[in-house]
């Protein structure tokens, strides 16, 4: 027994915790996304790196300025949002626009709602939706995936001066999604899987996104039901449509092209803006899957993942309300 009674700390039970923390969750997501980031830099060189960097900077600076007392740069969530915005952009995106996108994602997507955990819509997608509305040309100008040989080649639009008439490179390549449905045969599914195609930074390699998903599932930082239900519903619905009329794209193209895999794994699974229950996650995922196919096949847009997720984000509180767990001992079966 110590000579003097130790001063004792009073707390209430439980006195043990599992030891996962919100910053740790963010780090796991960043690790999960790292292969995709590496691939985007491999395929698109320094432009990719610059776009991602300014998006993160835009997000973190906005958090630092506007988040007030709720400011928390250390938890990694602002950086992650910035990174996610960057990965939805094309490599030739003018940097000032990318910076703005990161800022809007945090400003309008998160802090305006009351900070982390309070927002209805996925902040990164709010950032991208803003850019798409504001700069429709820049955000749909694509450069081909190149590889390390051209690492330092940037497109002239990268350093465009803010608010001057943007100098857009001639559309140097069509993405596999361009005019989706009509020319879905332009990219082989293997190329789509590996990512050796043009597109937004994070959208190109489905395979690496899946690697990240597996890591996050193992780390249990991830609601696997959401991407699984998205993939299954997209495959089922687009498969049905393709059977009806083979002018509609095949399920494999639907699954592997554009931002579907990336969006399903890294955007739709944002815990803040997705349902809390397992049952809710299935409904949410299936809803996204159906909307993606409908928008891509019948809508005016080539790509529908962003709007599908944002739309289902809006429904999330209702999904939560209708999928409340039934308490133990209050179920009929007992």
């Amino acid at each position, binding site marked *: *027994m*110590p000579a003097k*009674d*130790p*001063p*004792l*700390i*009073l*707390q*209430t*039970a*439980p*006195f*043990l*915790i*599992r030891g*996962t*923390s*919100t*910053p*740790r*969750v963010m780090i796991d997501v960043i690790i999960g996304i790292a292969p995709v980031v590496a691939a985007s830099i491999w395929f698109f060189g320094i432009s990719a790196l610059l776009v991602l960097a300014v998006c993160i900077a835009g997000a973190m600076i906005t958090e630092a300025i506007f988040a007030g007392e*709720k400011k*928390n740069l250390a*938890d990694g969530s602002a950086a992650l949002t910035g990174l996610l915005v960057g990965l939805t952009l094309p490599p030739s995106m003018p940097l000032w626009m990318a910076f703005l996108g990161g800022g809007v994602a945090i400003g309008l997507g998160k802090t305006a709602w009351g*900070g*982390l*955990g*309070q927002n209805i819509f996925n902040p990164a997608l709010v950032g991208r939706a803003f850019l798409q509305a504001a700069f429709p040309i820049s955000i749909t100008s694509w450069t081909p995936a190149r590889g390390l040989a051209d690492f330092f080649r940037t497109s002239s639009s990268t350093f465009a001066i803010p608010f001057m008439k943007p100098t857009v490179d001639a559309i140097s390549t069509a993405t596999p999604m361009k005019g989706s449905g009509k020319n879905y045969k332009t990219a082989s599914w293997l190329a789509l899987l590996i990512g050796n195609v043009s597109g937004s930074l994070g959208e190109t390699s489905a395979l690496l996104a899946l690697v990240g998903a597996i890591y996050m599932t193992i780390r249990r930082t991830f*609601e696997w039901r959401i991407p699984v239900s998205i993939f299954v519903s997209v495959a089922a619905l687009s498969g049905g449509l393709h059977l009806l009329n083979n002018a509609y794209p095949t399920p494999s193209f639907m699954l592997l092209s554009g931002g579907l895999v990336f969006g399903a794994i890294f955007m739709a699974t944002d*815990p*803040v803006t*997705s*349902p*809390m*229950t*397992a049952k809710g996650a299935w409904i949410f995922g299936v809803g996204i899957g159906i909307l993606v196919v409908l928008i891509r096949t019948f809508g005016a847009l080539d790509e529908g993942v962003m709007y599908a997720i944002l739309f289902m984000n809006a429904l999330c509180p209702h999904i939560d309300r209708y999928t*409340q*767990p*039934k*308490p*133990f*001992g*209050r*179920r009929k*079966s*007992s």
Partner: protein
Amino acid sequence: MDTAIASSTFRHGVHPQEHKEATESLPLERMPFVERYILPLGQHIGAPSKAVVKSGDQVQRGQLIAAPGGYVSTSLHSPVTGKVVGVASHRTANGQFVPAIEIEADPYSSQRMVQESAADWQSLSGSDFVQAVQDAGLVGLGGAAFPSHVKYALPEGKRCQYLVLNGCECEPYLTCDHRVMAERADDVILGARILQQKLQADRAVFGVEANKPDAIEALRQAIPAGEAMEVRALHVKYPQGAEKMLIKAVFGREVPAGKLPLDLNMVVNNVGTMAAIADYFVRGQPLIERVVTVSGPGIASPANLIVPIGTPVRQVLAHCGLSEKTQQLIMGGPMMGQSLSSVDVPVLKGTSGLLAFTGDALLERVEHPCIRCGRCLEACPNFLNPQQLARLSRYSEYQRAEDEHYAMDCMECGACTFVCPSGIPIVQLIRVAKGVIRESKK
């Protein structure tokens, strides 16, 4: 078993690190007698006992010192031979001051038990048995300290089909039930047989978590051939030892919310209580001692100690060697126990463990905003929505917490707080809500 569909665990729950290795293979050992004992009159659920001794009285070990103060109340006996030096208010584990009998041990006494004739349990009638259990001062030794005789007095029209014996011990660190089952299997089985006969239960079923294979084996060996008794190995998962989770695991049935196991014709009891029944009906020893697991990073020699009730925590910790670095003391388990404000409180009938945590093992509570990850919903064994409950409690929307999310169904196991990556004190907030709701119902 007729309608019973066995599943070996319940759904949801958590897997805390067990931390049992320090004490799980240490044999029971006896805490030496100390100078003074403090015996609070209300150390069980229900009305406090009434002192039947006064300052200056000589008492013998095992002698009645306080009688039941009502039906839901029980007897209290002296753990030592010595002299009553006071009946006054004394600090107890939860920080309150309560009336307690203070006894100074006679250092020259042999500490032989006062020989109460062991009752012939075979011939006892049901109601005499219930009375005897109250006379023995028996309470549930799992931690809640509910007077046992109340459980054993089956109300009119109720029947006990299954006697369920809880040997889960799902709290991390604690190994007292484990050691009792492993070393005193014969007594545990005997106690269970006595109870089974008196309750006229068709069958007695032990539920033991699979991390205690020696205990399971010892119990199985101790069951006489032909006895309607069995031992079930259950998954290791917290809170497997919660009564309703145990029934779910063993029988696949859910006790309806707000109901008791008896509504499913079951009585659930802790295994340590079975050994205490044997102690009383075979040796005439009332509940004057219990096994306490003393462990944690702040304890030099962890132990499973047989401690006389009323022994000051200070002496128990000194016996096991308390580190100077200790910053937190917990009475009970780390998931549902309580932290002590002082070492000058006594070991009670419900004290299953004394854990000492040093600074580096302490839980650092940094809170982040809720990110709605849903881990608490997946942890809650009661299938509540802890996230909403905590949120509503924080906004003082207590009635909504009950009306929309069944706050009062929460058994406060703490699984939600355990898993929360944002460090939100979820169960603590729910406890606040429950307290307010309970008050408002009065």
